């Protein structure tokens, strides 16, 4: 993976520690991730795998006790976000990189009308209020809010959950960002609305020429939406690749087990569902070898002592597993 010209975001060797009273939590370790132009990259993993830490790092929203390793870089369109001044960061957040959050109920301010919230974020634009409202109306229409001009005066509680998430998407895309980060944008929504929102996001990103980093634990949504997938486990990227390759030819035992656990992938009806035995390691006291070795049914000689590097499965698919090296 080299940082080509058509790369929007390149995360290289990103390691983040959190200093806590109990010890140093090694939340992210040597994470590499690339988001190319006009592509949707999915990050999938279970709770505590570091996916939120990773996206918070891209926007530099980490808590005060976080320590980013010196060797790390997060390059957005040629500039290292980690080295930016607060003023430069303000120029990027919400304009170049925007975000859609998990819960549309709490992402909007309940006491300010939608129209005011939408025009507020256009403070950078030198344009009359009437024009800003026209722009906001147009965006609301594009995300499928009926009668958008009238609804600008409404408050968040007057919209349903699905409509609120549409408004959040409209706001995120209003400044025409290069990268949209979506953090579990549909977990608060019903399944029929989830399908609508996912299709809307995909259409809009294509129309606005915006790349997307889509975070989810739902494998179905990842398969539906993404071009490339990054699988995370306990703070490491264990496997990444092109979406068809990853779903059909997963190499890392964790990815395979995760796919096997999904009840939606099990064709035959069965009462006893597969699980991954054991639990996620303590990030303060990491195992010496491969991070997944304690739970891995296929571990062999090298796994418990040495941590594997990332090995190429093919040109578009890598996995952090000795089996790939030795294959």
């Amino acid at each position, binding site marked *: 993976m080299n940082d080509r010209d058509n790369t929007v975001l390149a995360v290289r060797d990103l390691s983040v520690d959190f200093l806590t009273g109990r010890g140093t939590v090694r939340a992210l370790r040597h994470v590499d991730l690339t988001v190319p132009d006009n592509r949707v990259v999915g990050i999938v993993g279970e709770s505590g795998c570091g996916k939120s830490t990773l996206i918070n790092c891209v926007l530099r929203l980490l808590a005060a006790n976080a320590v980013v390793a010196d060797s790390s870089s997060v390059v957005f369109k040629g500039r290292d976000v980690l080295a930016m001044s607060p003023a430069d960061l303000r120029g990027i957040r919400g304009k170049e990189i925007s975000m859609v959050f998990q819960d549309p109920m709490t992402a909007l301010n309940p006491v300010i009308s939608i129209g005011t919230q939408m025009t507020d974020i256009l403070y950078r634009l030198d344009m009359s209020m009437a024009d800003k409202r026209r722009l906001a109306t147009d965006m609301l229409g594009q995300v499928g809010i009926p009668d958008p001009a009238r609804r600008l005066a409404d408050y968040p509680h007057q919209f349903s959950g699905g409509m609120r998430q549409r408004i959040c998407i409209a706001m995120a895309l209003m400044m025409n960002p290069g990268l949209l980060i979506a953090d579990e944008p549909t977990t608060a929504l019903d*399944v*029929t609305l989830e399908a609508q929102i996912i299709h809307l996001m995909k259409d809009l990103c294509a129309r606005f020429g915006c790349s997307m980093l889509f975070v989810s*634990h739902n*494998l179905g949504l990842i398969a539906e939406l993404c071009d490339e997938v990054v699988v995370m486990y306990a703070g490491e990227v264990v496997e990444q690749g092109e979406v068809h390759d990853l779903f059909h030819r997963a190499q890392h035992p964790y990815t395979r087990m995760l796919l096997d656990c999904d009840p939606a992938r099990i064709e035959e009806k069965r009462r006893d569902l597969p699980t991954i035995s054991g639990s996620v390691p303590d990030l303060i006291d990491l195992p010496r070898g491969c991070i997944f070795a304690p739970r891995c049914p296929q571990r062999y000689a090298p796994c418990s002592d040495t941590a594997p590097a990332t090995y190429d499965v093919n040109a578009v698919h890598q996995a952090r597993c000795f089996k790939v090296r030795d294959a």
Partner: protein
Amino acid sequence: MPELLNVEGLRVRFRTAGLVKSLVKSLTDPHIDAVMQVSFTLNEGETYGLVGESGSGKTTLGRAIIGLVEMAEGSITFDGTELRGLDDARLRVIRRNVAMMFQDPVASLSPRKTVRNLITEPFRIHRIPGSESSRDARRLLNLVGLHEGFLGAYPHQLSGGQARRVGVARALALEPRLIIADEPTAGLDVSVQGEILNLMNRLQRELGLSYLIITHNLPVVRHVSDRLAIMYLGRFVETGDTDGIFASPAHPYTLGLLAAVPEPDPDKRREKLELEGEIPSLMNRPQGCEFHTRCPFVREKCLSEAPVLRTVAPGRMASCHFPFPNPAEAGTSGPGG
């Protein structure tokens, strides 16, 4: 299988406005019907799934069965005893047999009680004499696969999966015959979800439990339930045996729900969606078929005439004027809902 629970024509109403507000706003009927005309039977040892989106009334139905909300019409019979109009003392006896697992595993546990206290609380509430609570607490923890070391823990020290297990232990304390599980796996990771479902399945085999599982998670309900009811705006729109419904749904809403679940396979991406729009408000139910505002197959008749839930194939009921044909082929086992 003998019948354990029978619900007949159940209706639950909530008042939406007080006297003054309804006069000022000249509301003719300040009520909503959260559950309407619901009838079904749950057999001993069976798992029955209630499926629907938010606001479909599935949680309210579960709460009505355990007596947490009052019913406006209809009857609920548990093991031959009619629950309506029962005095508190006799209702308490029935309630020992019906336990509830609430939706949010952490929020449903009091943050100021230890696990030991939480799982023995049902004994105190029901004033079960002679129960030696610390022995019972250990036995229950063992049953749900938690180490005894958790006895002194508080809810905030538990992970989502562990809190779920404590919820299961609490529900099992009084050796109920029926457990109503409201979204038993919501918020859990997919690997932990399997553990909780397998635990519930093992307990069902060992203790002969019946489950009423309330969920919006279709992939899960397909694996765990014997029969299924799909709810929309407080009504059952389709009922039948789980395999049959998944193989060939009769109601367009069921079809839309099934189609909305994304398949974890990038080769099976959907070009178009079955269902557009959102669930209408209970304050403002559509005329005719209540699903006609979202139905892709809507016809003239649907706008004016409300369909009734009727048998469309052996063991299968649907409330649609134009149900999809041939739901019978897969759905022949088990009696109709």
